[in-house]
């Protein structure tokens, strides 16, 4: 039972990060391969704050704010420019963030990571086991999903769709495209930061590998297989993809092969989806 709860908690955390990516890539059409890095910023910020004695909820808020700022600042130089500059900024952000996680030892504990992150505690109740933490992750996912839904329903959401479809037409009708994009990168960053903080609080150990480019590719795969622009897609994707490692344990692979085989499957899923099923399982076409 604990195993199942643990799986659900992780899937819910990744669903939050997937929604963050979906908002950028699916809704506005801004490519991002740095969502794991942003998630990592949230996780490290939470770990440092929690270790300094900040309670769970404010620490989570701080983590979200830091992740949102990092996401916005790294995106800002290239938001004004089109397409390919953003791709490089995004790859660069991810790779540089990993370098920072490894090398800024004072805060991050370096490659060895940060162990012993304090347990989440709200109003004196601690959430230690997977079954207990499930409450927190479910409420967080619920809130993120609700805000995503109301965001897309609002006039701002329609504006974001319009930007994806034709940025020039949006500018021609007097909308401030840059401002809208900055807004969305803040929201998306905050979501990813929330996911990261939950991850840190739940696992109680983080290291650079938890937020490297493979994790970003995993999150993209979740969005692509789930389908763009729908909540159902972003929630379905993580549950499906996190089940793959569980299935792989049934095959008798050597320990060095497990990681590559898992990654290989993600890569194949990406290729198959873009060619044969761009709308994923429960979404719209990218």
């Amino acid at each position, binding site marked *: 039972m604990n195993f199942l709860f643990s799986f659900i908690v992780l899937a819910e955390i990744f669903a939050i990060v997937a929604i963050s990516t979906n908002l950028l890539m699916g809704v506005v059409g801004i490519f991002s391969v740095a969502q794991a890095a942003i998630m990592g910023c949230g996780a490290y910020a939470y770990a440092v704050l929690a270790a300094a004695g900040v309670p769970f909820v404010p620490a989570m808020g701080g983590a979200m704010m830091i992740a949102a700022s990092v996401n916005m600042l790294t995106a800002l130089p290239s938001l004004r*420019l089109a397409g390919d500059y953003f791709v490089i900024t995004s790859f660069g952000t991810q790779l540089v963030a990993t370098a920072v996680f490894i090398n800024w030892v004072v805060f991050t504990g370096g490659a060895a990571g940060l162990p012993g992150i304090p347990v989440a505690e709200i109003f004196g109740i601690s959430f230690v086991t997977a079954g207990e933490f499930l409450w927190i992750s479910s409420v967080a996912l619920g809130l993120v999903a609700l805000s995503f839904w109301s965001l897309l329903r609002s006039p701002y959401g329609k504006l974001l769709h319009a930007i994806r479809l034709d940025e020039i037409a949006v500018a021609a009708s007097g909308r401030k495209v840059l401002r809208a994009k900055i807004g969305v990168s803040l929201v998306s960053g905050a979501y990813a930061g929330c996911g990261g903080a939950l991850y840190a609080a739940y696992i109680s150990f983080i290291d650079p590998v938890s937020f490297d480019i*493979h994790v970003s590719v995993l999150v993209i795969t979740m969005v692509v297989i789930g389908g763009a622009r729908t909540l159902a897609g972003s929630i379905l994707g993580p549950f499906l993809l996190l089940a793959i490692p569980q299935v792989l344990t049934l095959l008798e692979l050597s320990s060095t092969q497990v990681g590559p085989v898992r990654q290989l499957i993600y*890569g194949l899923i990406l290729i198959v989806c*873009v060619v044969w099923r761009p709308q994923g399982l429960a979404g719209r076409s990218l």
Partner: protein
Amino acid sequence: MTMLFLHLVVDGIVTGCAIGLVAATFAYFYSTSGTFHVAHAGVYTFCGYVAWYCTTWGIPFVPSLLIAMGVGALLGVIIQGLLYARLAQIKASPLVMLIGSIGVLTVLQNLAAIFFTPNIIQFEFPWRIANVELGPIFLSVPQLLILILCPLLYVALLLFSSYTALGRQIRAVASNPELAQITHLRPRRMFIYAIAISSAMVAVPGVLVGIDQAMQPYTSLIILLTAVVAVIAGGIGSLTGAFFMSIALSTIQSVSVLLVSGRWSLAVVFVIFIVFILVRPEGLVKRKFSREL
């Protein structure tokens, strides 16, 4: 101090030549087809592993390198023919193309890890660590090979592009795909040639850097990042800009260890990139091919 500086500069130039060829070949395919071919890094890695595998069977260096180039060309053709052409046919957006390319990159890296080994490997050539003395500087034999072969191939690519009939046809497609279609240049075939040439060439730095340092399936993305920053800073579409900007970037990166720890050298490149897109987004050299971003 001056000796150290000189060594760092030479190191930077050597690495820059290798990255320069990655950048030039990336720019070549990008300006021809408009595809942001991230999987180029995967071809680079995979070819390195192919050459390594050949040498473990006792095949000498030169044939191993040629086999790796052949495999590279083949991989390129498969990627273009089976994925990019298909996506172009269904009018996929650049975003979807890019995701497909990331998929291929992931597949290639992990195939290398599964078929060969996920661990760090080294070539077993006895001459790998032999040094050549050129005045005050020492170069290892693999470094010397990089210094000779990569610029040579870059020049060959330039000459091919400007002076052969096929090269000119490919360039014509790059500057105007619609017109080329009308004049029966068959852009899709030109894309295949362009990716085959790029992929065969990128195998060379893939193998040589592998011999010089060591190989690991997942590190090539960092090289590609530097290369693509060079492509942008050098002016998209300019092969010369891409090649020399790679050398400049690598040299700066190499020398920067005098000021900041080598662990931050990737960040140095990224900062240069940010400065570039803020100050001069069109790059140093005006673009030759007019491909809209």
